[in-house]
């Protein structure tokens, strides 16, 4: 698979007195099998970027400009038709708070099979088989497959999403705050599963998180956003050791302080 490239993404919110740009010319590059961490303070535009990338931007927000190169094709993000056949098969978005991404009225196993039949045009029997494999891979048994999302714990729901990703084999995974609300041990476990999945599928993972420490551990590349723009981008090691932008520096200093306890 080739790298995924996002060029010049602009997202705006129409309003009285003209539209307001909330994402300004964001360009990102995602290497297959690698993790790109997107950092920044609240309101910097990280989640909006993720939504725009997967075609799930809620109205009245809209993409004013932006191209995504994926699998040799160039997608014009301003046109919603571009997403036909792409979403799910190539890009999978895992929302903040895993409960929201799953259909509450459908059993968990059935949701995966359904997605396989739709997005990968599989026959029912094959879909069921792959669903079983996927759930097993992430430590869920057939009993879990028969449950509804609300009957599973938060951790189990996240695993279901991981199983879904494994089954669909998308090229690009976007995880928005996947470890929010978990305690330290679960956080590490979840991050490990994510990164393993990414490398196994050869997909690119765009990881958005507040948890800078987690990102520093797992991300291969980092991009820092502020007020809708990407202010710094580069390999994780370099960025953390030699930050140049003031925001990055503040973030790294805070990180150091929290890790080591020295001001």
């Amino acid at each position, binding site marked *: 698979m080739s790298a995924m490239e996002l060029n010049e993404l602009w997202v705006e*919110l129409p309003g*009285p007195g003209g539209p307001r740009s*909330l994402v300004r010319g964001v360009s990102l590059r995602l290497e297959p099998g690698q993790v790109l961490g997107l950092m920044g303070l609240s*309101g910097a535009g990280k989640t909006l970027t993720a939504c725009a990338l997967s075609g799930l931007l809620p109205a009245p927000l809209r993409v004013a400009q932006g191209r995504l190169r994926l699998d040799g094709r160039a997608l014009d993000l301003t046109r919603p038709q571009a997403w036909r056949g792409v979403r799910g098969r190539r890009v999978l978005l895992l929302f903040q708070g895993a409960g929201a991404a799953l259909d509450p009225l459908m059993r968990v196993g059935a949701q995966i099979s359904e997605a396989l039949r739709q997005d990968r045009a599989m026959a029912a029997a094959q879909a069921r088989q792959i669903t079983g494999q996927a759930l097993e891979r992430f430590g869920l048994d057939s009993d879990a497959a028969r449950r509804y999302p609300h009957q599973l714990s938060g951790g189990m729901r996240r695993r279901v999403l991981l199983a879904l990703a494994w089954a669909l084999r998308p090229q690009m995974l976007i995880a928005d705050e996947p470890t929010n609300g978990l305690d330290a041990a679960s956080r590490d476990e979840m991050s490990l599963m994510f990164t393993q999945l990414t490398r196994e599928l050869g997909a690119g993972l765009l990881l958005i998180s507040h948890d800078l420490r987690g990102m520093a551990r797992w991300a291969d590349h980092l991009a820092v956003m502020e007020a809708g723009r990407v202010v710094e981008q580069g390999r994780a090691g370099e960025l953390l050791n030699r930050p140049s932008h003031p925001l990055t520096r503040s973030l790294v200093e805070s990180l150091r302080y929290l890790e080591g306890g020295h001001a």
Partner: protein
Amino acid sequence: MSERRPGAGRVWAGGLLLALMALAVWAAPLLAPQDPLRVELGQRLQPPSAAHLLGTDQLGRDQLSRLLYGGRVSLLAGLAASGAALVVGLAWGVGAGLAGRTGDFLLMRTADVGLAFPGLLLALVLVGAWQGGMVALVTALALTGWAWWARLSRGLLREAKSREYVLGGRALGMGGWRLLGCYLLPQMWPPVAVAAAMKTGWIIVALSALGYLGLGIQPPHPEWGAMLQQSRLYMSRAPWLMLAPGGAVFLVVLACNLIAEGLRRRWQIREVRWL
């Protein structure tokens, strides 16, 4: 409609309409061109003219005057009944919401009994037993309405109580009265206001219905429902007799609904927070 305060247009339109009508019927002694009870058999069933702006009825009485005086019953009594039901029901529901398990149970089961009675029938029985009269009318309608308010306000109060910042207030050391006045009640006003506007319209229709059935103010005193009932016989000969009271009820309910919808938009929209 202004962007900054959605619903404002409706609230103003409805409010103005209702206020004008209330003012007009309140000032009936000043505005009515004639004595509404004055019978003039020579002027029976006259269409609207300069002398009688809304025509005359089958006994030659001026419709406009009857409409204005009739409104004193239909409109003002309706507002009074609505207000009374609201006050009693609100206090009841808030009390139940704040009380412990037993208190809540007792209060709300009583309200359930109140709700179980079909409203209009109950009003019918009460007014029949008390032989009509304004006080009876207002009391009867208030009695049919209070239980609904109790239910609504108890639900609203419990919902407000469950908010996290109420727990935070308790942790701060705030006492019960302070919590009630500053945190709980202010949360309740918007839905209560919208419901009040809508319910008022309903009560006025109910009042007219009672009058139509002959259970309101007894003739010859005018009242919109009774006027509607009498106009039935002359529908083909004198349609204006029906239009005046019918139109009045329609306008009042329209005004109430406009206010309710306007308020709903105003506060609903404020709830949606984007970024």
